[in-house]
């Protein structure tokens, strides 16, 4: 296999082909409004465990979805078969549904044609990467672990998609998006270490560097001690911060906010986290996975959500936005959390200047316990350490926590510059590592 065996890939649906599909749908539809959506993807994942490949998969899936509306009645049908007959049948199915649907008072016709800022959503090196490139990275990670007599489990994945949305209003958007991922869990005995990356460019996964990080964490875990549950100062690595912060995003839903079923209800314009924290959406950021437009066809926009700790924005559906007279709906496709006013140390500096703390690599299985005050629970995972007098002194058995991001992000002692973070439970964000005081670990597990 060559490293870039692109000649073997089927061509994904181009802009012209999507326009042809759109016309096929619009010519067939008798609806007052018609919306056509495209998602055509080629993706592959090489998965390994116990230092060998256990799954090695490649997939091409194209799907076109049609929404037809008569007045306030609407229906949606989709197909993975792009033949003209099937696409026309899909229009008929959507029409059939719409004709029999009750009026939906919140239905809005598709948006009018929009202006899109070109967002660098795809990278050719990822689009051209195939099984051979994934195998190369897999071999690198496994090889380093084998040399250290450690076990490697993880994935290397890459994908390219063409995505489109078009409507009878004249709306038309189409773009290519790429995504590459690497994650690795290194095992030795009961100890594990983890590291992960996601990027538009497969060249930016930093496989060697992240493998060494995971190896270092696993090796540090060989000596483990059990600490009692209680309140500790914690140093959260970016992935751990991302896990807690991501849970806050669900509470930004504007409709829930207005119906008083959000933990943030009544807090718009008020301080909700430390005044040094600012949260923005930055679609054009090269290290984030921003997109050019939403499934509704609205352009993604750079926007401020929390400024100096004050909640300034909510996440609107189109109906709620219209009811509030909001024309430009903000998006959260490329989130970035930053801290100002603090001298930005590195993670190593933070450890060095800490008398006693728990260093957390990642959290796992984070769930809401109390939606009213956003109390969450979850476990530490794959690298939890005791820091004393400026150094990591041992691994500790994993803790369960009970905390709310609305409480812990008001107890910041130190913070780094925003860093790339991705976990199995979050999308990609830029967030700092943070030292937080008085963090509630409620119980300990057996490893």
């Amino acid at each position: 296999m060559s490293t870039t065996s692109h000649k073997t890939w089927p061509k994904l649906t181009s802009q012209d082909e999507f326009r042809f599909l759109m016309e096929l749908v619009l010519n067939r539809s008798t609806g007052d409004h018609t919306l056509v959506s495209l998602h055509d993807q080629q993706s592959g994942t090489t998965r390994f465990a116990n230092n060998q490949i256990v799954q090695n998969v490649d997939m091409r899936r194209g799907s076109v979805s049609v929404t037809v509306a008569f007045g306030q009645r609407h229906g949606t049908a989709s197909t993975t078969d792009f033949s003209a007959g099937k696409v026309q049948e899909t229009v008929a199915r959507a029409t059939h549904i719409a004709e029999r649907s009750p009026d939906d008072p919140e239905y809005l016709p598709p948006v009018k044609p929009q202006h899109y800022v070109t967002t660098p959503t795809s990278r050719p090196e990822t689009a051209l990467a195939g099984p051979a490139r994934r195998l190369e990275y897999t071999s690198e990670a496994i090889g380093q672990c084998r040399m250290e007599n450690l076990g490697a489990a993880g994935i290397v994945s890459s994908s390219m998609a063409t995505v489109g949305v078009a409507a009878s209003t004249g709306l038309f958007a189409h773009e290519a998006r790429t995504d590459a991922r690497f994650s690795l869990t290194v095992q030795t005995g009961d100890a594990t270490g983890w590291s992960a990356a996601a990027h538009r460019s497969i060249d930016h996964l930093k496989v060697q560097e992240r493998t060494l990080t995971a190896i270092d964490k696993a090796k540090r875990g060989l000596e483990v001690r059990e600490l009692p549950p209680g309140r500790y100062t914690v140093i959260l690595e970016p992935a751990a911060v991302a896990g807690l912060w991501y849970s806050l995003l669900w509470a930004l839903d504007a409709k829930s906010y207005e119906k008083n079923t959000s933990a943030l209800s009544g807090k718009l314009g008020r301080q909700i986290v430390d005044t040094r924290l600012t949260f923005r959406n930055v679609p054009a950021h090269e290290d984030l996975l921003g997109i050019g437009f939403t499934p509704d066809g609205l352009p993604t926009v750079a926007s401020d959500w929390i400024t100096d700790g004050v909640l300034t924005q909510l996440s609107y559906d189109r109906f709620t936005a219209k009811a509030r007279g909001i024309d430009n709906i903000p998006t959260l496709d490329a989130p970035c959390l930053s801290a100002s006013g603090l001298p930005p140390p590195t993670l190593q500096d933070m450890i060095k200047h800490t008398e006693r703390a728990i260093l957390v690599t990642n959290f796992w299985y984070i769930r809401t316990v109390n939606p009213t005050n956003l109390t969450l629970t979850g476990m530490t995972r794959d690298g939890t350490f005791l820091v004393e007098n400026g150094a990591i002194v041992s691994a500790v058995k994993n803790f369960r926590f009970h905390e709310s991001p609305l409480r812990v992000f008001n107890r910041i002692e130190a913070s780094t510059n925003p860093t790339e973070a991705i976990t199995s439970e979050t999308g990609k964000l830029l967030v700092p590592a943070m030292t937080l005081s008085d963090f509630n670990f409620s119980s300990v597990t057996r490893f």
Partner: protein
Amino acid sequence: MHAHRNPDQDELAELALKRVVASGAEYGDIRLLDSTTQTIRGEDRRIASIRDAQDSGFGIRVLYHGAWGFAASSVLSLEEAPRVADLAIDIAKGSASLARERVKLADEPVHRDRIVTARRIDPFAVTLDKKTALLLETMESIHRQPGIVRSSASLWARRDRKLFVSTEGSRLEFDLLALSGDFDATAIHDGRFASRSFNTPHLRMGYELIDDANFLAVAPRIASEAVEKVKAPTTDPGQYDLVLDPEHLSLTMHESCGHPSELDRALGYEANYAGTSFLTTDTRGTFRYGSSHVNLVADNCEPETLAATGYDDDGVTCQQWDIVRDGIFVGYCTNREVAPKIGETRSRGSNRADSWSAVPIVRIANIGLEPGSATLDELLADVTRGIYIEGHGSYSIDQRRYNFQFGGDAFWLIENGRRTHMVRDVVYHGITPEFWGSCDGVADRSHRRRYGFITCGKGQPAQSGWMTHAASHARFRNVNVIGGQAGS
């Protein structure tokens, strides 16, 4: 655009598998799947969406020199089949280059069969008018209860038509249905909000499941209990006896027994994502998982249950076996790849993929708690201070499945043998074998109910597993209830 003629499925399968055999691969199979999913979702007294999704494609799995390759495509054509077959072969060769231990599949007889879900009423033949009217009337009924601020109601139906063909000669056809319905009510009081929900189980049957569930008769009670729940007093943390209903237990069993009994987890295959298992291979046959009241049985043969598909995606016959017998851990969920690694000569037939585009992986079977001999009243009668829990709430468990925490959907205080009033903010915490070790009573078969999951996350790329868990009510002594205000 893919302007290919739609080939006969057998023709396409034969074309693909011929190339696999010619490559020198020791095994190959193809799954062609055509799925139709209808989802009707209501929210706050309106029908928010009706979606009819058709998803078809094929996936080819190749075992070459003891290593796997898999490729899949939604383009069903005689031109695409050889491309995908060649790609799967090429990928398998790449895997083989890093192989240390060759995969050797457990033997399985060749099967040629056709499986069809029995149904009285085809859910896709029921008119949309009838379905949307049911959801709208259900939500209206909920909102008639003072204190309710939000509601939702939905129906979901899926039909899978699948053909599995292997190079060993198996040919299996499937025409499977699955169905579910649910609704919930959210109440607000004193700055708090709380929801109460009703769910039919996900089962393989027809629309009679929805008819029999009688949403309109149940909705007023659910709405009333949502209001009672949000106004209920909070719980004092402490040790309580718990009586858990079958729906609640379905989740407890799933997370604390189902996942750790997956052999691929125990062998480290999921170390980077879903996690491993405290039920390591040396524990089988000796480890005390629970009390002698605890008998957990995998049954992929029980009609109407999600994993009872006749054969799994290895082409292995669905079976029944023990996971925990008299409190001792005795058996795993396996597939043809991992079963030989613990000396078993045949797979348990628990290898499933969630679509044509995914490779099958070991999945939790239909694991259920075997009924005991008590009645629910007898279980309650022997509780001085306890909590009765219904339904699912917040849940979280560590990656080896030791340290867990479960909430629920509704909670009632038990005082001196009687269920008294609702309480809120109940969250209990435990260590799996200690928790199951505290089980001292299971209700009889007349209390047995089935619930299931279609969103069990596992695998990379992530897949959704389907399985049903049946139980009667069960009682657990001195469980640590920490309360939903924990940490505040």
